[in-house]
């Protein structure tokens, strides 16, 4: 298994509070991604990073921000959580770009009350 960890694995929070999810990799891969998974939607890309301090938006980026200050860490922040952000969040990594295999972390289940 690829060396990807996510923390926390489970979180319950209240509407309006900030939340930060962390993805950590030990593979030294250049690309990192954040997805959310909701029933009937598969996985949808939130943001991705193509290097330290280099990030770009995905298809569902509203309400989310990211940061990558080190190759191994990619943070996803919900500045003010809403109930619509209740979801399972997956981090993924790949060596190259969009045609390369992505390896997924175990996921973080976030509930916003």
């Amino acid at each position: 298994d690829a060396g990807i960890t996510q923390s926390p694995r489970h979180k319950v929070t209240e509407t309006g509070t900030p939340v930060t999810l962390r993805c950590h990799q030990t593979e030294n891969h250049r690309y990192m991604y954040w997805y959310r998974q909701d029933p009937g939607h598969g996985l949808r890309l939130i943001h991705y990073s193509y290097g330290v301090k280099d990030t770009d938006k995905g298809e569902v980026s509203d309400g989310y921000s990211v940061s990558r200050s080190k190759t191994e860490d990619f943070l996803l922040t919900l500045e003010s959580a809403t109930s619509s952000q209740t979801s399972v969040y997956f981090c993924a990594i790949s060596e190259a770009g969009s045609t390369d295999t992505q390896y997924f972390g175990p996921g973080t289940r976030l509930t916003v009350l």
Partner: protein
Amino acid sequence: AQSVTQLDSHVSVSEGTPVLLRCNYSSSYSPSLFWYVQHPNKGLQLLLKYTSAATLVKGINGFEAEFKKSETSFHLTKPSAHMSDAAEYFCVVSEAYTGRRALTFGSGTRLQVQP
């Protein structure tokens, strides 16, 4: 723009019978295509990947998929289902020449395997 449609949200088979999970894609360029599997409360695991080499791709656990450009399809098959195959399966497309953009997922097919 790229997109992918999984034609069945649920498929139920008996153990030992063949499995067919259907996927159609849309792509403006030569696509890369993937199948991932997700077991309950787990992350996603790559089953197989097509990148324009052979059109018949063999994956792990006896799964294979055939790329048919004329039909824009990439169906996943397995000759004989096992109870451990029960999971959700995602067909995924990624285009070349789209720079840094990531994958586009289908909505998933849940496979049930009956004893």
